[in-house]
């Protein structure tokens, strides 16, 4: 199995020490060996379930939350906004 722990950690925004990386690499190898026990079958074609149609929501406005209760759980707040470290604009 070729698993680039560093790259995956980066994608998942996780950080590991070199020791942890080794530990995870080993554990992941076992787990992947387990999950590779899938039957041989043709997995082409899209993943879609036409027998399970969705009920749409009507386009109506409902408002029942105040800004204060919505940002009450935020670690850092300023001027009614949630604060993060300066970002390079994208």
């Amino acid at each position, binding site marked *: 199995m070729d698993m680039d722990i560093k790259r995956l950690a980066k994608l998942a925004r996780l950080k590991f020490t070199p020791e942890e990386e080794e530990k995870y690499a080993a554990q992941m190898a076992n787990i992947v060996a387990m999950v590779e026990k899938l039957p041989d079958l043709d997995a082409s074609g899209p993943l879609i379930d036409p027998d399970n*149609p*969705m009920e749409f929501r009507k*386009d109506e406005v409902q408002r029942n*939350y105040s*800004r204060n209760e*919505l*940002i009450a759980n935020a670690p850092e707040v300023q001027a009614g906004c*949630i604060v993060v470290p300066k970002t390079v604009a*994208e």
Partner: protein
Amino acid sequence: MDTKGYEIIVGLEVHCELNTKSKIYCSCRNAFGAEVNSQCCPICMGMPGTLPTLNEKVVHYAVKMGYALNCSINPISKQDRKNYFYPDLPKAYQISQFDIPLCENGYLDILVDGQEKRIGVTRIHIEEDAGKLIHDDSFSGTLVDFNRCGVPLIEIVSEPDLRSSAEAKAYLDTIREIVIYLGISDGKMQEGSIRCDINVSVHKPGEPFGTRVEMKNVNTFSGAVRAIEYEAARQIEVLENGGTISQETRRWDDLKNCNFLLRSKEDAQDYRYFPEPDLSTIVLDEETLSELKASIPELPNKKVVRYMKELSIPEEDARLLVESIEKSAYFEEIIAAGKIVPKDASNWVLGGISRVINETGKSIKEIGIPAAHMAQLIEMLEKKEISSSAGNTVFEEMLKSDKAPKDIVKEKGLAQVSDNSVLQAIVDEVAAANQKSIDDYRGGKTNALGFLVGQCMKASKGKGNPAIMREMLLKILEG
């Protein structure tokens, strides 16, 4: 710009905000410019355990656009998660559509210097907008406003069929006119209702396409033009200096009027798309689809061409009429109401009517002149029953009262006199009183004729038919 013999290839990804009442996946108000974080709920703020529910209008609007752009509609489609971390994306994934968009394989005919050109439309899909980051230099951090999270978007992806910034501009203008005609978006640039990502490549004719570079963050159409020209010039320069173009994403900076590298192919994002398990399948039945199809009006790009070809209205006027749904509708009512030359009707709508709109800010409906009355006025002018100056007087009166032009003409006695005996008397009188002018004319001062005609008009209180009186004067002068 000097393309040094290179051909420029442009493809556009247009993001257009839909003007639904509520957001795409929750019932928050879809409104621009509200107080920060005042249009949010636990769902659009991505709080734990919350689930999306899809707004029916969003699906319908996207399908309408699909029909407008001649797409085939997928009656069974799904939504997918696009995973990436950014503070303006509270769930850390954007709900979008990956392999089965609502609409595919369409096209759009644009008008570039009088010629129609067909631009392929690859796909149209629905997705949610992200929040806004507020960068304030007076403050060490970045502020996040989630109001825009969950504002419904359609993304319209074009084929690389555009060959210049001008064509791109025409394409964008046409898309904008269409969404406004369909009433699915207010198309307000300044509010960011329409934004685009631009793919640009250059190559020598006959050679295969060059490597394409994607430009993000283009928020105005004029910006799009400049961005394309800048990027094309940049690529041409690189190639001319023996360099190569690498597949990368660049960010357009509209203020600095240039772009810079955002990420190269190597660190391209891995979005790990997979079907959104919180939303079941989008299934659209025949009936709904045909209703939506039937609701599509004649589109502006087609209307301009029809006005030009069938009504021989000049392109510029045609565009001006079509720009406004109300003006073009009024124009068509007028020409339907009487046997008149379309160009004359167009002139009144773009002239007198538009003037009143600009002066009073009223809509045509508020101005309240029935199309039939306009037609009647234009007819009288075409038949020379009244002079053009009288025509203006009648129009002014029509603005004040709802009387028919014919009645106004009667009341004010504005009808043009063409009775020869009456006119002859006037002409003889004027001739007798202006021997000097007659001598001048005979002496070669032909402009004396104009003076004499003027005198006749005066004497007839503006009602005499100037053409007839002119003929009568000439008889005397030449006699």
